[in-house]
Structures are given as C-alpha cells and as structure tokens.
C-alpha cells in the first residue's frame, strides 16, 4: 500500500503526521537495536560454543570466538553493525552462514502468511460472534460465547497448537510448510492448524473489544434515532453500530500485530514451520547475534508500520478524524 494518494487526499496534516511517525519510528528502531544488542551480549552464552557443539574443546570455542570478532569491545561491535545496517547490510548469520537479509526475506513471507491467516481466522470468528453476543446480550448465545472467549484468552497458543495436533493429526498435516508450487490444497492445508492456533487467542480479544464497542454503540442516541426512523435492526447493527464500534477494535488489531508475530514464533516451532519466528528462536538459542539483531529490527519495523497503518485507517473509517487532520 502506498501512502501518496492518501496523503494527497488528506492534505498536509496527514503528511506531517506521517513524518512525525517516521521520526518516532527511527528513534524506536535505534533504541530497539541498542536494547537487543545489549541484551543478547549480556546474557551468558557464546555463539562460538553453539556453532561448534557440546563437545568442542574450550580452545576451539575460543578460537572461533576470536574469528567472529566477538572479543572486540561491545561498542566497536555495535558501531560496526550499525554502520553496515545503515548501508543495508545486516551481516551474515553465524549459524546459517547466509546473509541475514536473505534469510529474513526467505522467511518473512511464511510468517506474514500465517499471521494474516490467523488475523482472518480471528476476524471471521470474532466479528459475527460479537454481533450475535451484543444483539442478544445476556442470552445463552452471549454467555456461551463469553465462556469460549475466556478460554481463548487463557489458553496459550503453543498449548492450543499441541491440542490441535492431537485432535487433527489424522485429518490435517501437523507440521511443515508447503509452498504454493506444491498445490493449493497442500499449501492451505498446512496453514489451517497454525492459523487457528495463533488466531484463536486474538479472536478472543477482538470479540471482547468489539462486543463492548457494539453494546456501547447501540445505547447511543443516533441508534435510538435510527430506530425511531424505522431502520431495520440488521442495518443499524451492520451499518451504524459496527462501524463506530470498530475503531477500538482496529486499535486492538494493530497492537496485537506484535502478539501475532510473537505468537508465530511459538506456533512455528510447534508446527515446524520455517518462518521468521522459528528462525529468531533458533538465533536466540544459538546466540546468533547478527540474525537476532536483524530479526528484531525487521520485527520492530513491521510493528511500527502496522500501527502507522492503524492510525491512517482511523482517518479512512471516521470522517471526524479526517476533518480534524485536514485542520
């Protein structure tokens, strides 16, 4: 999605807003890389040991440690990394030896696909359920839905993943990733269980927020007015109440983008999916510093970009915000 038409349409106000967000993003990125750099270096664990294995001699580990330049002062290491990163070079993975950018490029599509499917799963489950729940508040359907939602919030995605594997191992593939070239069904069947495992918790939150939003919306005066004009309940809910209730829901979806990326790490490990999440988990356990830093950088960029999109989408959904931005 390009922002230019939007900026033109919405005028300078939005341009400033985007610029300010961009500056904030740069600061966040810098801060994140410093924090991650310090964290991965401060915790014990030597990538040279991870690369050489349990039974390598300490001498061999020390030699590789020096070869990797890990005996240099931390500031020097960070500065070298930062300068290279500003030139688009995130270095090479210690464990996989390939350039970090290439590794992330290979994996990000897989993770994005799972995250998008999980998001779709969550919306498909949560929005209709929240509509039913709000419409018949206090009824059995509402109460049942809320119990399921509580369970959805409480059950961690990795545990749900294991339950799904146990339940569906004879019906659906329980591990791996099949590219589209393997066939459409093959491709999508491998995504069903991971997407459900990841999307279920998200669905629960979306349901809860949207339900509350809807309940508040249908108590507003404009709804009463619409009813007085004889507009059907269906139209009131779908056209007026849902649109107004959706603003906080979008905020949650945006904030939860981080959750989806984090959850993808666990789900990818359980389902043996070669996505960015598993790549980063392996990188962390192996103290693959360049890969951890590159991965975190990309994750932060995605997170910030999604939140920027959420900000912009407010303007698209709510004319009042659009007018305010135009100033």
């Amino acid at each position: 999605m390009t922002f230019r038409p939007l900026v033109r349409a919405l005028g300078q106000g939005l341009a400033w807003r985007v610029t300010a967000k961009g500056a904030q993003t740069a600061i966040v990125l810098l801060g994140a890389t410093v924090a991650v750099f310090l964290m991965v270096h401060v915790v014990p664990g030597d990538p040279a040991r991870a690369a050489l294995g349990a039974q390598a001699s300490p001498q061999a580990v020390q030699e590789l440690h020096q070869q990797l330049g890990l005996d240099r002062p931390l500031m020097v290491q960070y500065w070298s990394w930062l300068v290279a990163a500003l030139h688009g070079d995130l270095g090479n993975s210690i464990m996989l030896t390939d350039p970090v950018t290439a590794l992330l490029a290979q994996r990000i599509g897989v993770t994005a696909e799972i995250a998008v499917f999980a998001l779709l799963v969550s919306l498909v489950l949560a929005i209709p359920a929240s509509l039913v729940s709000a419409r018949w508040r206090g009824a059995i359907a509402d109460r049942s839905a809320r119990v399921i939602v509580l369970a959805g919030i409480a059950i961690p995605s990795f545990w749900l993943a294991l339950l799904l594997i146990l339940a569906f191992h004879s019906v659906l593939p329980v591990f791996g990733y099949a590219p589209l070239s393997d066939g459409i069904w093959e491709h999508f069947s491998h995504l069903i269980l991971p997407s459900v495992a990841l999307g279920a918790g998200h669905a629960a939150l979306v349901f809860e927020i949207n339900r509350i939003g809807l309940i508040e919306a249908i108590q507003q005066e404009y709804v009463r007015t619409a009813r007085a004009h004889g507009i059907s309940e269906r139209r009131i809910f779908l056209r007026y109440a849902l649109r107004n209730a959706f603003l906080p829901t979008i905020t949650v979806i945006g904030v939860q983008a981080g959750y989806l990326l984090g959850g993808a790490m666990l789900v990818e490990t359980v389902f043996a999916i070669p996505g960015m999440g598993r790549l980063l988990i392996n990188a962390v356990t192996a103290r693959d510093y360049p890969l951890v830093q590159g991965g975190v950088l990309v994750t932060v960029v995605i997170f910030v970009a999604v939140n920027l999109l959420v900000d912009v989408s407010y303007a698209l959904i709510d004319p009042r915000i659009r007018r305010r931005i135009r100033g």
Partner: protein
Amino acid sequence: MAEMPYTGGPLERIGQLGALSRRGLLAGSLGLGLSAALAGCGGGSSPSPGGAGATGKPKRGGVLHAAIPEEPFPNAYDMARVGSSTGTERVAYLAYNGLVNVDTSGKIVGELAQTIENPTPTRYIFDLRQDVTFHDGTKLDAKAVKANFDRIQDPKTKSPRRRALIESVNVLGPYQLEIRLTQPYAAFLGQLRRSKMPIQSPTAVEKYAASDPFKASVGTGGYKFVSYRKGDGVQLERFDNYFGGTNYFDQIAIKIIPSQPTAVQALMAGEMDFIRIAPESVAAIKGNPQVRLDAADDTFVDYLSFNQKVAPFDKLEVRQAFSQAIDRAGLVSAIYSGLAEPGHGPLASGFGSYYEALDDVAAQKYDVAAAKASLQAGGYDTGSTIRFDTFTDAPFDKEADVIQQALVAIGVKSELRKADFTTFATLFYDQRNYTIGNSQWNGSVDPDEVLTNLYGPEDGTTSNSTSAVDPQMTKLIAAGRTEMDPAKRADIYHEAGRRAAEQAHYAFICYPKVLAGLSAKVQGYKSRIGGGWPIDECWFA
C-alpha cells in the same frame, strides 16, 4: 541450537574400537575387522519392543521421511568444517563413507578401505576399494583420500576435525594409502569412522567449498544430497552407483522438527517414518501398532559434575556424599522409563570388555546414611545453599529436579538454575563458572575419548568440567592410549574406571539407551554404536 547431550535424535553413538595387534594384517572386505581385538565388546541394538530389525527381503522404492530436531551446523555438509554436531553427522552419514565404519556388533570394519595393515604401532596402510565413485562421477583413489586428510590437517582450514597425532599421509599406490602417527594411539582407527572422518570429493571441495558448502558436500554414500532448505529440511536421493548396494529407498526426506510432541504425532499419523524418541515420549507411542520403538544399548553416560575449584568440592568426602545421595535406579525408572542402566563409572556397558559394573564402589552407590556421614566428615555446611546448573532440554532438566530432591534428603539445599543449552555450555564447559551441574558425555568411539575428555588437562583441549586433574588418571589414560593389546588395555580401563568412581570427581548417574521411533513398514533398522544414522540400509516392507 547446537547438537548437545541428548537434545535430539539418537545422539552420537560411542563405539568400541579395539586395539590392533602390532604388525597384524586386518584383512577382509567389508567384514574386515578388528574382531579379535574387540572380543567381548558389546553394543548394538537390544531387541526392541516392536521387533525393529531386518525382516523379509530388502526391496527398492519409496521415500523415507525422517526428522531431525535442529538445523544442521555450519558449514553443512562440508564436514571438514563442521564442529561436534551429531545432528549434522547423522544426516551426513547417509551421503558419505569413511575409511572404516562401525558394524552392528560394535566392530570397526573397513568401508572404503578393503584391508588395513598396521606394521608398526605408528603406521597404518590402507588398501582402498577400487569400485568407488563419488556422486559427482569422479573416482575415489588414494590421492582423493589424501586430499581429505591434507585439508583437515591444514591449519588454514581451521577444521575442528584436525587430528594432532597424524604425522603424515602418503600415497603408496593408486589405491594404497599410508598414515603415520607421531606416537602409538590405540583408538586411532575408530576416529576414521564414517561419522567422524567422512571422505568428500576433492573436486567438489575445490570447486565449491569457498562459495557453497552444500554443493561441496559430495560423498560416495548410498544417498546423495539434492536440496537443503534451511530451516525446513534436507532431501537426498539414491545414488545408483553406490558400491555398497544397500541403498533401497528412492529418496530420504529429512524435516527439521524441533518439537518432540509434533514429531511424535507426525510419526503416529504416518507422516514420518523415523524420528528420535525422548524418554518422556515412550509412553505415547507404546501400543500403536503402526509404530515401533527401538531401544539400543550405547555408551552414553549421564553425570553430575563437581567444580573442584569451588569449596567444598575439593574434598572427596563431600563429592562422595553428593554421589551417594543419588538413587540411580529410581532416577532411571522415573526419568528414562527404565530405558537406561544405573551408572557407577565413566565407561558404559556398551564398551564391552572395557566396562566394569563398579556397583561395589561405595562412592557411587546410593546410600543416604553413608551420604550423611560423608557430608559430616567433609565438614559441609548444611546451612548454605549451593548453585546447581542444568539446561532445559529433556531429560536433563528433570534429571536435575530428581537430583535436587535427593540432595534435600541428606540436608543439602541447592538453587537450581535451568538455562538454555548455549548458556549452560558456556558457563559449564568454557568458563567453568558453576558449582555443580549435570550433563552427558557421548560421541566417543573408544574409552580413551571419554576419559581424555572427562579427565584431561585443563588446557582448553578437553571437556573436563571438574577443573581437577588427577595424576593417577592421567597416567592410566596415557597407558590406555598406547597399549595395543586389548586384554591389557581392558585391565588399564578397569583400573581407570575404578579410580574415577572412587575419586568421585563426577557422580556417574546412568547409561541411557538410544531410542528411535520407526513406522512399522521400516525394515532392516539396526542401531549401531560409534555414530551415524543407519537408516541408509533400511527398506520398506
């Protein structure tokens, strides 16, 4: 994650290498052997509950699906540059051959070498098979093998597989090779086995090693590498010119599945044909008629290490007390579902004639009363809390839980620190920044490798985590390395094992079996000590 003590798959199998008789001609084709030297050696597969093993006539066809728990190590599978990664070695085992290998009875047998002569203790002459072709079509000859050794020995390669004891490697004829050692080394041949010294095509190495290690991974084995999707898996296909003729599958597809429950479910669902089984998964696959469990004896040893630079573990009585507090049989039952033997010394029963039970050694025997007395004799302060390091891979974290509770029973309080393996290994092996910690030794083919690593000098070349060097052990290890007579060698290792048990530098806990889960249609699987992944000789029923 690095392949580490028992984190994934059948781990490095420790084989039994017997010594060669001086001037003995070790003849035979693939049955060549050191059988005389290996008399009494154990190892190999124990009968598995489902009866894994060769049944029926082998037939070709099919794709074997197998799982490994972690990414192959860099620079996979250019093995000259790969460290001590048993996971990578297992996959490489399918594509390569060594001058020798370990057979299913634990004997070192010729593989690329048809005969081996050992005219003096420091000189080996290998007559190579003449019908061997690399996957790239080039012929295997003495020059090709020498090129492999030259590369590994060249300091510029920085190969973790460099052999310090090799003085020279010389081509004596088109298919005859001589290796000279700087000093006699009874364990030498075992270090040349397939999983430790796989022979690569020098042509492929020269062409690709610098740019693409995977393309340089060209061997002579039954299967050749086709593709490696990092993070996902490795594909191999049958090499039709394989001299061994025991490669029956059309393909072997290996997936990286880090989660054991997922791998187990994939096996149960028929999506996998071969996976490693962690002890806690044994119950899950029992009773499934589509799945078999193979539990093979091996030479692994689990131990509790005491850092003897930290008081009061410099005192024998304190170490003894800790060791005596551990109910080994109970731990084996609780943690390993009975699929391990209680351990009392550094050399597991898989070492055959070199093994001695040592269950009479008081320092390694479960006895709470004796432990309390030893603790008192050592002046241990029961008011203190000691640090206990372990790592979060099964079953070591649970093993540590059991040991911690055992120590409570004798009045010892400990703070258990569970870390990921890399953190643990850095603290435990490299920095020796720990007080007590549990781990496992595996990956050796000879008692010398176990003892040298657990009791070797503190010069950075060994994995002696105790920070203690026992001169008596050093003497015995040196004697065992150079003694070529197996009977005398066995005596030396019995003495060394007893000394190790009595001095309790480590509390030896158990000797775990190697567990594999196979689909019922897989035939011909016979686990073998000494490393590797012998699924290359299996077939489908």
